[in-house]
């Protein structure tokens, strides 16, 4: 009787504290309210070794964090921002595998293993309930299969693990767009990224599957700036990397123009254009450049006119391009020398 009151009071204290804690935590923020850092932690810095862009002090990582801020200001969702940035920078994979698609099992397997383990442990108890009374520890005869069961279980788990990893790996190959289809297709704005940054990303990710398109984007930018010397090695690198026809034609046609415009090498330019047209027959850009070279370099206005007409014969041309080619065609037909 005498120690009942203190115990009751003690429980009352516990209950009060618990209620206080519960009430206090209602509406508490779930995590630190720094959205940019949260997003940055999900993106691997492409030039650092395994650090996220939020953690790395490198210049590139800070540029990318600035891009996160910009995209946040544009009102994109977290996932969209991560997808946009990882698509723009080869080598900058997302660090949190999504709970869907091929990486789903990475999340689910441990949970399943926890359940399976809990079940196995509870079985250890149930067995004894059946075999009551408990056998004395040291000299119990062995039911032969019980140890094997553990080993077999471990073996099966290991095999399942290996199997799943292998399966996922092959599964991924069929689905190379990283589960981000739709978002990855959205035009990626590379204009925010400086040439130096692109160079850094490229040299840090030479073997990356998507690095060729960044190389081409950078080379095209140099090309348009008239900096043929910087553009040349990138086009060359694209060609040596066994590119797809679409990438090859871009590199070959630009290279053709560079050797003509930069060095005046008509024949070499022409052979490069021919290689480009082998990759993608009737590529309008290549046909046009080839026409320009025929007109201005080879002094062959007839061939130039023919090539220009082939360009104009294609549907879906940009109106501005159509206008320009039409002008050139008129000029070459009326015997004007090339401008």
């Amino acid at each position, binding site marked *: 009787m005498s120690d009942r009151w203190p115990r009751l009071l*003690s429980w009352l204290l516990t209950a009060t*504290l618990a209620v206080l804690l519960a009430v206090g935590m209602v509406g*508490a923020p779930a995590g630190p309210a720094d959205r940019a850092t949260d997003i940055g*932690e999900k993106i691997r810095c492409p030039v650092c070794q395994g650090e996220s862009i939020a953690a790395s002090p490198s210049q590139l990582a800070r540029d990318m964090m600035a891009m996160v801020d910009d995209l946040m200001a544009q009102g994109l969702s977290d996932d969209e921002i991560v997808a946009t940035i990882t698509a723009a920078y080869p080598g900058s994979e997302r660090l949190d595998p999504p709970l869907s698609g091929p990486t789903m099992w*990475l999340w689910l397997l441990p949970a399943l293993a926890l359940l399976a383990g*809990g079940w196995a*442990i509870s079985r250890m*108890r149930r067995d004894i309930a059946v075999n009551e009374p408990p056998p004395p520890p040291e000299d119990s005869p062995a039911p032969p299969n019980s140890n094997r069961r553990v*080993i077999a279980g471990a073996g099966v788990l290991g095999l399942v693990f290996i199997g799943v990893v292998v399966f996922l790996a092959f599964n991924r190959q069929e689905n190379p767009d990283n589960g981000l289809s739709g978002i990855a297709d959205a035009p990626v704005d590379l204009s925010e990224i400086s040439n130096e940054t692109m160079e850094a990303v490229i040299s840090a990710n030479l073997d*990356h599957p998507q690095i060729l398109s960044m190389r081409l984007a950078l080379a095209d930018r140099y090309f348009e700036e008239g900096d043929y010397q910087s553009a040349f090695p990138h086009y060359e690198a694209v060609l040596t990397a066994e590119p797809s026809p679409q990438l090859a034609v871009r590199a070959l046609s630009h290279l053709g123009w560079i050797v003509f415009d930069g060095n005046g090498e008509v024949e070499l330019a022409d052979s490069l254009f021919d290689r480009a047209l082998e990759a993608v027959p009737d590529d309008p850009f290549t046909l046009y450049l080839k026409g320009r070279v025929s007109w201005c370099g080879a002094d062959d206005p007839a061939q130039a006119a023919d090539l220009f007409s082939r360009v104009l014969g294609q549907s879906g041309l940009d109106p501005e391009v159509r206008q320009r080619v039409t002008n050139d065609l008129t000029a070459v037909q009326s015997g004007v020398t090339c401008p």
Partner: protein
Amino acid sequence: MLGLLGDLGIVAGLAGSVWLTWRGWRTAARPLEEGAGLGSPLKLMVVGAVTAMAALVGALLANDFSLEYVANHHSRSTPFPFNVATAWAALEGSIVLWGVILAGYAGATYLAYRRNPDRLGAGALAVMGIIGTFFFGLMITVADPFRVCIEAGAASCLNASPWPWVAASAPANGPGPNPLLQNHILMAIHPPMLYLGYVGLSVPFAYAISGLALSQSGTGWLERSRRSTLVAWSFLSLGILLGGWWAYEVLSWGGYWAWDPVENASLMPWLIATAFIHSSLVQMRRGSLQTWNYVLVFTAFALTILGTFLTRSGTIASVHSFTQSAIGPVLLGFLLVVLLGSFGLLALRAPQMETSPRLESLFSREGAFLANNLVLAILTFVVLSGTLYPLVVEAISGDQVGVGPPFFQRMAIPLAFMLLGLMAIGPLVAWGKGDPSQVGRKLHRALQAALAAAVLAMFTISRLPAVVGAIGAATFVIAASLDNLLTSAGKAAKARDGRATAEVGRVLAARPGYWAGQLSHAGVALVAVGIALSSSLALHSEHRMSPGDAVSFAGYELHYVSPFLRSEPNRRVEGATIEVTRDGQTVTVLEPRAGFYGEDTTGITTPAVHSTLAGDLYLTLLSIDSIGIVLRAETSPGIWLIWLGGLTVAAGGVISLSARRRARIGRETALV
């Protein structure tokens, strides 16, 4: 000359290992009279390993650039102690370190064997001989540290020969060790600590294989190897802690753990070894979990080989992959042999093994240990799958996928809270069959303390669930243990009419191993609080500043006084002098800086840290040029709790060792 000596050392180590394997196996198979014949091979192995290491260190100290290793990893200007630490900073040297430590553990195993010469011990020495054979074999083949340079470059060796008698061509100087490795004193200590942990796990592995091969069931192998397991575990804890500390002090991103593959590689054996330390107790006390203990010990050892493979093969991009070499496939092959050999042997012996007695009740100490083992195993599985998944995908499909901190954190946090809960409850539950209501009564006051601490934290520190939860759970762990200690002391005092304070020491001394474990638990609780505080409450900002500028940050005023430039023997240091004031009073002067080593122009940024009890002020120089600097300022609240907690964890291991030693001496004197 030193190269020749080193080669002789390696050959001696290899010969000793092979001999030890042979003699050990013979002795285990057909017991000799008094365990004779194992001492000589062991001495040869130890002398060989020490000679090789001494020759390597000697060559570094003597600037002997005629050796390829020295020419490529050392420079005349590398200061002490980094010139010595270079001996294990690169691949070949780290294998020599592995050999030396293995020889040391083999020596300790032999000393134990001499006191108690039996087949189990001889077999264990044979297994260590096999491991030694592999590692000394590496040293004369794919990881030869004493290759002679035959074609010198400007500041490196371009071509080398394994034969010690060829004419050497030495460069005048070398490039020095990786800049990251000569930036902080911790880097000289962290790898040996980690290796002491890794290699130490070979001792329980050796005993386990020996016991299985000899068909000796029972707990002999556990008892004989427990000391080494605890030593290895303590060093591993310390090594991981020092690694985190080094990352924090050197890598200038304000963190201490990045879930980097190589960090993960050191965490996994630690997790499994922790599980093993607990589950082996179950077998020693109750006879259960025999098979499971073998599985754990084999896994732990295999994970250390995996760790070496990940660190040394250059397979993964990481701050740790300093080297790339042909050693990768060889280590992978050894890993396969270890896995197939050990698990195959286990499967072979399983039919002969006694069945583990079943649990009497799930609510028991062994039940809690089982739960702890389950959580630790799942955590290891998470870390393993997250680490290897990107590797496997890239190997097979060429795609690069990232699995990084967000994944590991989200998985590890719930598991960590489960562990904290188990740490509070488990130690209070009796062996065999626990009494839930009694445990509930014992835990009531701890629960009140936990709730009170959580409420207090909520009002004074932060309402973030991670912070409140970690503080509550950690208080629960520590309060439960303290309450148990004081209650026991109080009861003892009542029984003997003594003072409770005097009885505390007696209670502790009565079960030193148990209380050492409790100390480690308290350390883990502190680490949990440190992690929660530093990751949830950190502030950070970036400032572009010119000399004379001042900014406010987290209650401090940061004044950029001036840039500075210093020339040191091995590097050029550029930095900024920042005066830190608070309420007009100067607190400290910090010098965040960048070090430039040799021809390297990118520079290694080194943060400047001001530590207080509330937390650290952490300044990093992001860039410095003629106009000014870009300074990143961060806070790390409560981060010292991680260092203190980590040391406490390791201290628990060390104390339980000395406790076991006292207990043994006590037993031996009692016998006399």
